[in-house]
């Protein structure tokens, strides 16, 4: 009884603190104007891929980092590296294995202000593995339009993306760069 009362007070205090800083604004990324890209290295040369289908729910305000939250759902089947053969290989059982893991999911946990913008730490679930991936981004709000642009780096093998031959990093590097640009629209 006592513990429960104490818990309620704590929740009330946290809510008060959040409201003092102002709540984050809720947005949805405009699918037509937003992009989510990745860059891998194969045979020493970079190649770029895009996810054509993803949704991003963004709660953000520069003065309300405590209540900020990104929730991104990615349709892995929508990947496009501008080569059908490569796309099929990446969708296949040894890489994304989309027959078993058709989507990836990213949810942030905490935000911090940095010199260049913001850093968020969130959990990425990809290929059935959940691991923390930090993202660096900038929030640009001008003329009533808000935009988030950022980058991340991850190691594909930490998520098991690379079975069999593809476990080797001699032909396809482990590190994959991610870049995103989210054009934000108020969530309805």
């Amino acid at each position, binding site marked *: 009884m006592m513990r429960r009362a104490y818990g309620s007070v704590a929740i009330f205090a946290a809510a008060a603190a959040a409201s003092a800083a102002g709540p984050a604004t809720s947005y949805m990324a405009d699918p037509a104007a937003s992009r989510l890209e990745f860059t891998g290295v*194969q*045979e*020493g040369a970079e*190649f770029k891929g895009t996810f054509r289908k993803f949704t991003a729910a963004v709660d953000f305000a520069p003065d309300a980092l405590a209540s900020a939250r990104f929730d991104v759902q990615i349709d892995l089947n929508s990947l496009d590296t501008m*080569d059908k*053969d490569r796309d*099929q290989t990446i969708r296949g059982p040894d890489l994304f294995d989309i027959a078993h893991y058709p989507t990836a999911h990213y949810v942030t946990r905490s935000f911090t202000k940095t010199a260049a913008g913001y850093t968020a730490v969130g959990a990425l679930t990809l290929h059935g593995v959940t691991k923390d991936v930090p993202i660096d981004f900038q929030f640009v709000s001008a003329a009533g339009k808000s935009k988030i642009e950022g980058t991340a780096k991850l190691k594909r093998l930490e998520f098991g993306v690379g079975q069999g*031959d593809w476990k080797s990093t001699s*032909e396809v590097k482990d590190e994959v760069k991610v870049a995103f640009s989210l054009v934000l629209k108020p969530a309805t």
Partner: protein
Amino acid sequence: MPNHDPPTRYTGVAQTFHWIIAALIVTQFIIAWTAEDLPQGMHKLALLGRHKSVGMTVLMLAILRLLWRFKHPPPDLPSAMTPVQRRLARATHIAFYVLLFAMPLTGWMMSSAKNYSVSWWGLFTWPDLIGKNETAFNILKATHDTLSFILLVLAVLHVLAALKHHFWNKDDVFVRMLPFTKSEKRS
């Protein structure tokens, strides 16, 4: 006094270019034929990566070789050769030079058209020559394949001709491209 006598042998540099490029081209055929039989996968990707690095090496050597040749004309053909034979020899050599450039360039463009940029041994990446274009890729692949067949036929003729010169005509046409040998006046 500078020596104005026409050269009787290829220079050591020309010989080096010839034999290194010849060895690289043999390597290219072996890699290409091996890769062709492989299914889409990492081994094929790896082999084609090597094929591109070797090909770009050939292209760079071909540029240097051509520059060297402009400054250092090759020795004259034996006087015993007929005008038709001379024309054939000359045409073959010109065709080789054209192919030394056309093979790597069509390969490079193929890679660009398929959106697989060409790296040089992982050290740096060459710029894409054309944009992603599937039709262009198919045409370039057909061209690259056809040129490789022509190159193969020419190479066989070239080797047979060199051997004929050496064993049949008993002139120095073969030996003068061979390092660590001396050309005797055989014709």
